[in-house]
């Protein structure tokens, strides 16, 4: 029984399961949410499901939807690879499965955060709208060709719990890579004479 426990990469198993859980959860709960005014504009962002709410209408951008599908498939493949690897970490091909699986949740997370930062910087530079990554701020909207009108809106943004679940998934996958050295070493064979 103990042998079974030592043969399994538990970090990998947890990482793979959490990665698949992240996909399921992110369908319904965004990683990051931006609200403008009293829900007049809402941005629900995650690599898995990104949608926008504007004046009560919810929509997605087809190209972003395609990228969401890419992310879902990448995370799904990563999760499955991690699960398979974790159960059989000593097979000859297991290291390839681990190499394929462990980086993808981390890269998805990094691309998402970098994408958010770049988007907020572009909003500031091009539209002069200060979009917070976390917290609230009041931003004055530029109104071309209209003098005497000032429109300012409260922008509130926050990373949601599903984002932190993705951080945990990425962390577990990295831990699985580090733990692999321990679990991959086959126990020394005892010779009976």
């Amino acid at each position, binding site marked *: 029984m103990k042998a079974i426990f030592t043969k399994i990469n538990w970090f990998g198993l947890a990482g793979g399961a959490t990665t698949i859980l992240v996909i399921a959860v992110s369908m319904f709960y965004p990683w990051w949410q931006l609200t*403008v*005014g*009293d*829900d*007049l504009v809402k941005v629900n962002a995650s690599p898995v499901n990104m949608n926008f709410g*504007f*004046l*009560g*209408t*919810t*929509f*997605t*951008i*087809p*190209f972003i*939807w*395609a*990228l969401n*599908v*890419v992310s879902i*498939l*990448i995370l799904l*493949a990563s999760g499955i*690879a991690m699960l398979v690897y974790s159960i059989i970490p000593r097979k*000859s*091909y297991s290291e*390839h*499965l681990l190499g*394929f699986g462990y980086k993808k949740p981390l890269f998805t997370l990094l691309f998402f955060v970098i994408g958010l930062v770049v988007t907020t910087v572009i909003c500031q530079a091009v539209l002069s709208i200060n979009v917070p990554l976390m917290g609230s701020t*009041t931003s004055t909207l530029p109104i071309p060709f209209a*003098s*005497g*009108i*000032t*429109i*300012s*809106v*409260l922008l509130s943004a926050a990373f949601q719990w599903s984002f932190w679940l993705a951080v945990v998934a990425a962390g577990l996958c990295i831990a699985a890579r580090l733990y692999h050295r321990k679990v991959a070493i086959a126990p020394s064979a005892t010779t009976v004479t």
Partner: protein
Amino acid sequence: MDKVRLLLSLITIVIIVVPIVGMLLAYQDNLLGLFIPPEINEIADDLMGGDGLDEFELEPVGQPQYDEASRTFSATFQFKNTFPIDVTIKSLSGNIKCKEHRFHLGNASLSEPVSIDKGETETMTVLGTWTEEAISHFHTKHAGEETVDVVLVDFAVDVSGIQIQLDQSQMEQSMQVPNPVYEG
């Protein structure tokens, strides 16, 4: 082992390429639609078609009431929601000026938030308080008048979390208020 590595690389490429190429093919006749969904056009049409701020007008209802003890008057207005969505007017404030002399008489504010569905009309009550200087102004300039024409200017409105400030050049709401010093 190399076969596994090759298979995994192939899976990665397929996963990345197929959805993007598929979407490009689906939108090959309308590449702009790839980035601008039809909903955005509908919203733009709604915003362009709606009167929005252009029709931001308060229609007075009945005669304003005046409370001498607190130097406060209340005036009721009708407001039609011309925005393409349901809105809540959380606050409204402005300055009251004498229409004839442009003298600052006091401040006005909304008595309580008002929620108005898209296209509907609701009544709202605005409370105004005269300053000491305003009372003197009524004495010196409008002593014999039962009502005085005033204007609400420098509006600051909070509509569903969006704060809109309109200066005099954008909006001036005229109304008649009872002269607090009239002894007719």
